């Protein structure tokens, strides 16, 4: 590494214009510099002292890679977009390196064009690789916050079922109609033939029909019949298509009617709800807004007086909470007006309260006004002067004494020894922290006892002393333990000090209990 002291590192991407403010002496830049020097990002190296904790430092897991290869080799998976495959593997807990390795091993016709490998043109790779089309294909309707996959599939089934139903119904309908129209047509055709046949024998009876004439007549009849059949079949086709069109129109109209009826019933329910809830909401509102509610425009102040007109419109929009949330549904009950607006959008209508607003900057080169205050240090970057609790200050500065009484800020919880606590981050000496600070070691209460602990003495004497100071036998046991520990030779003064403090604390505790 050329210049170890050279903050900021010059990254291969074009991020250097952001000046690195040297307030955070983080240990990570030297390491990442080293890692950037190597091209492959997959296997982060344990160089320099602390590797960045924000990277995976685990080696590739072969079993996971094998599972991924099996997954990727499945024919159905081959047909899915690459982004889905990656997302699935990520959700299974594979690291990026393992996923890349699996993709590399599986012969893949469409190259997995993931932007992790090269660092040189990192920015371009990151932004332009994923084909938008694949991603767009996954997007459901824009704003719905509920889990989309199930909704999407539900829509698919619903659409498919509806399509099949419509097709079957139209097919059956046309079949019925055709049959109905076919039979009378056949009958009329047969009748026509019979009439011709009747007339023919009459003609023959009148004038002696010769064979030729008969043949001619038969041929004529046959041709007439054929043309008739052709005509009839044509008409049949036309009527069939017409019938189908009519049927589809009919079903569509029916659907529209159903939707209108649904919305009507919704509105009715709304109105009923409003009528029912009007007294309740009114009184609830009184208690909520009684204490100094501020409106943005003066006209809304009449609201506080409870003008009913305002009330109806308002409660129609932000409806009262649903009467009983459904037992175990995964979808939270949306407000009724939310469903109204969603259905309005789906029908293609636009809510009427939207205004045309021009929110473009009037002067795109407008200079920022100068800052009046210097940035303040954050409470977690210690060094900030403690903010005194000011009982006379504004209400928001008055710390509620109850707020600390969450019952967890006791020495017990602190001493649990959270394995992941990095002790440097929260020094006990932080003046601003209102959390637990280790108490100062209490002054030596019994100098004789303290000396007794420091200097090895026969146990009997110490027991006597302990018994003299307190009647509880537990104390003597504790003291015995402590003395034994110190007698067997602690590691040095530090240990003795600890035992002393413990002993003193116990002394204090027991003396308190005695009181």
């Amino acid at each position, binding site marked *: 590494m050329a210049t170890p002291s050279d903050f900021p*590192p010059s990254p291969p991407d074009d991020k250097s214009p952001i000046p690195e403010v040297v307030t955070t002496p983080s240990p990570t830049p030297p390491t*990442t510099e080293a890692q950037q020097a190597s091209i492959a990002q997959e296997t982060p190296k344990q160089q320099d002292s602390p590797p960045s904790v924000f990277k*995976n430092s685990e080696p590739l897991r072969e079993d996971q890679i094998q599972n991924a290869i099996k997954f990727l080799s499945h024919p159905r998976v081959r047909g899915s977009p690459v982004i889905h495959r990656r*997302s699935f593997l990520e959700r299974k807990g594979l690291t990026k390196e393992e996923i890349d390795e699996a993709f590399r091993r599986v012969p893949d016709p469409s190259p997995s064009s993931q932007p992790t490998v090269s660092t040189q043109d990192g920015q371009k790779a990151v932004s332009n690789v994923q084909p938008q089309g694949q991603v767009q294909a996954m997007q459901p309707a824009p704003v719905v916050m509920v889990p*989309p996959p199930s909704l999407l599939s539900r829509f698919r089934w619903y659409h498919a079922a509806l399509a099949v139903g419509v097709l079957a119904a139209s097919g059956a309908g046309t079949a019925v109609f055709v049959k109905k129209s076919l039979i009378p047509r056949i009958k009329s055709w047969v009748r026509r033939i019979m009439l011709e046949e009747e007339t023919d024998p009459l003609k023959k009876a009148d004038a002696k029909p010769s064979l030729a004439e008969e043949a001619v007549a038969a041929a004529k009849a046959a041709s007439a019949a054929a043309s008739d059949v052709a005509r009839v079949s044509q008409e049949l086709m036309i009527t069939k298509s017409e019938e189908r069109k009519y049927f589809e129109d009919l079903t569509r109209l029916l659907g529209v009617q159903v939707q209108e009826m649904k919305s009507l019933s919704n509105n009715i329910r709304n109105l009923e709800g409003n009528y029912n809830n009007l007294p309740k909401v009114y009184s609830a509102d009184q208690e909520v807004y009684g204490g100094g509610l*501020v409106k*943005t425009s003066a006209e809304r102040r009449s609201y506080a007086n409870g003008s009913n007109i305002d009330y109806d419109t308002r409660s129609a929009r932000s409806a009262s909470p649903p009467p009983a949330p459904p037992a175990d549904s995964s979808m939270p009950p949306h407000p009724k007006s939310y469903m109204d607006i969603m259905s309005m959008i789906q029908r293609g209508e636009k809510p009427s309260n939207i205004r045309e607003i021009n929110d473009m900057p*009037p002067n795109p080169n407008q200079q920022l006004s100068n800052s009046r205050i210097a940035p303040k240090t954050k409470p977690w970057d210690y060094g900030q002067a403690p903010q005194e609790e000011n009982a006379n200050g504004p209400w928001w500065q008055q710390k509620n004494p109850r707020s600390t009484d969450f019952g967890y800020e006791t020495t017990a919880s602190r001493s649990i020894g959270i394995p992941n606590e990095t002790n440097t981050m929260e020094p006990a000496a932080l003046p601003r922290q209102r959390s637990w600070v280790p108490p100062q070691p209490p002054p030596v209460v019994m100098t004789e006892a303290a000396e007794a602990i420091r200097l090895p003495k026969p146990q009997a004497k110490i027991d006597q002393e302990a018994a003299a100071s307190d009647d509880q036998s537990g104390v003597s046991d504790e003291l015995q333990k402590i003395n034994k520990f110190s007698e067997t030779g602690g590691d040095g003064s530090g240990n003795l000090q600890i035992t002393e403090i413990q002993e003193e604390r116990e002394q204090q505790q027991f003396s308190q209990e005695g009181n």
Partner: protein
Amino acid sequence: MPVFKAPFNGYSVKFSPFYESRLAVATAQNFGILGNGKIHVLELSPGLPGVTESVSFDTADAVYDVSWSESHDSVLVAAVGDGSVKIYDTALPPPSNPIRSFQEHAREVHSVDYNPTRRDSFLTASWDDTVKLWAMDRPASIRTFKEHAYCVYQAVWNPKHGDVFASASGDCTLRIWDVREPGSTMIIPGHDFEILSCDWNKYDDCVLATSSVDKTIKVWDVRSYRAPLAVLNGHGYAVRKVKFSPHRRSLIASCSYDMSVCLWDYMVEDALVGRYDHHTEFAVGIDMSVLVEGLMASTGWDELVYVWQQGMDPRAS
């Protein structure tokens, strides 16, 4: 405790890092489905009424999130539903605002977060699956991070390392990124459902919390990310936002579609330490003040913004 009634449904609330009594609220008409948006800048005052609006800005589309600048006391950044990122300067008169509008995201911008350590850049997370890095003085984004397979709901800077951030996405993963690297440095498949929010522990730079549609909040340590440190249950529906306290190491605030705001201590056996049921619709925005310990604010689709001290009843007068 003061309440502010907005004309539109609330989406996000943020305290100013410069002024104790100032906060910004992002709102959207028609629940953010389709309609205009509005940003309110509110001032807390000692007497009645407890909160007043000092200025507001109208936008053509819904505003989903707002973030105060850490370098200029009067500047805020807004994440707008039409994919634009707008910068407002409250020291300039409203007709001069916004001072910038960046149109790069292909879909709604769902969150914006200003860098608290470097103070010169901010991140936006969008439903177009990308996270973008911006600086105030640049006309275009500096980086685009495109790896998520679905909407990115939030991107949050690490409070100690100015180059590291985390992103929470609808593809059910949480990713850790370093702006000096071309791609994400860690992928944590945190939940089985969409992850709606994440936030770093201000006192332990390796710990962060995620909240998800599966109604839980999980606390992770990036050094052993295979299993969470804690799983916090208690919300009845999806947890929309989660926030670590700037003053207490293990205190987490969360708001949910079950209309409640909860306080948790993830290091304790019974983690739920507080619950507020003041909202009458989905509670979607929450913030804890950096300058005043214990001061919290929340907003929801009931168009109300509450500001209160922990331990008090938000609806008390």
